[in-house]
């Protein structure tokens, strides 16, 4: 499992995964935002767990956007419309976790935070590479989409928390 130090080292360089220049990441982001408009279209409060530098976070259609990000190097690049929080202290209308429920991260802790941040009716948006995603459940799954992403199959799961 990656440590905070390893993540900080990884994020010394801006956009280490090259999300901003890879066409499949533009595709993935457009897909995410369209799904959010479909299930929203707009949220009062949203939390992004493992937000990184906020490349997707900043465009979440929500009045108040919070980000939980373990890496200080990544979090210092969060855009102005995103507020970094150090822990979950309230419930949200939308909880997102994309690319973090993986074995390389503390996915049990992320899942626990998702439960903590969710109330009845909260929509939970899980995204990630299909074969890497650890199986967690967050109520009733209302949608699942698959898309081709780089050399992988990527999935989006929408859960309604209960």
């Amino acid at each position, binding site marked *: 499992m990656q440590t905070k130090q390893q993540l900080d080292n990884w994020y010394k360089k801006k956009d280490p995964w090259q999300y901003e220049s890879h066409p499949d990441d533009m*595709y993935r982001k*457009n*897909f995410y935002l*369209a*799904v959010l*408009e*479909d299930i929203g*279209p707009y949220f009062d409060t949203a939390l992004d767990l493992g937000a990184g530098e906020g490349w997707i976070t900043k465009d979440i259609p929500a009045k108040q956007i919070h980000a939980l990000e373990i890496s200080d190097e990544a979090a210092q690049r969060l855009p102005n419309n995103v507020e970094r929080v150090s822990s979950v202290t309230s419930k949200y209308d939308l909880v997102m976790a994309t690319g973090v429920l993986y074995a390389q991260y503390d996915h049990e802790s992320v899942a626990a935070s998702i439960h903590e941040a969710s109330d009845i009716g909260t929509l939970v948006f899980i995204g990630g590479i299909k074969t890497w995603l650890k199986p967690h459940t967050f109520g009733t799954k209302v*949608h699942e*989409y*698959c*898309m*081709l992403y780089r050399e992988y199959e990527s999935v989006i799961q929408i859960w309604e928390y209960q």
Partner: protein
Amino acid sequence: MRLAHNIGNEKHSNYHTREQILACDEPIGFDGVYLNVFENQDVLEEKSGIMFVMGNEMGKDNSFDLKHVPKLERYCTLSQVKELCSLYNFEIGWHTWSHRNLTKLSERDIIQEITAPFPTKYLRYPYGAYNDKVVALVKAAGYEKAYSVTQGVRDEFAEDADYKIYSNYVPFN
């Protein structure tokens, strides 16, 4: 099902007047979907059909297509299209993400283009263009019907007829 794009008074095949839409007694497939359809939505009152959304253009304008059309128009947001479908007898369909000719793409790119970010049963081929490979991938993606505007079969018993449905324009006279 008939084809329409904009509702307006421009003299161009991409435009139908309100009167022409009102006079059409067949289901209509709107491609785009343009904001002027939303703004003229009262003419949809007794109509039915499909709103074919283009993913990358939702809420944006048609500047990418300006050499083919007489003027700049905006597209509806997804929420506006969903509102039209909830108010009138229309269903939502998919017109791909970027309106590229599917017959010229790799299998991987076709799959990306036809994967919609919401549940839908209907696809409109960009430029109406399909071939056997495209039809096979559209079927595999779970679509129930796919519509063309430039080719297609009218024989409902033809092979894969539901994926080669020909649409002519809403009558202009």
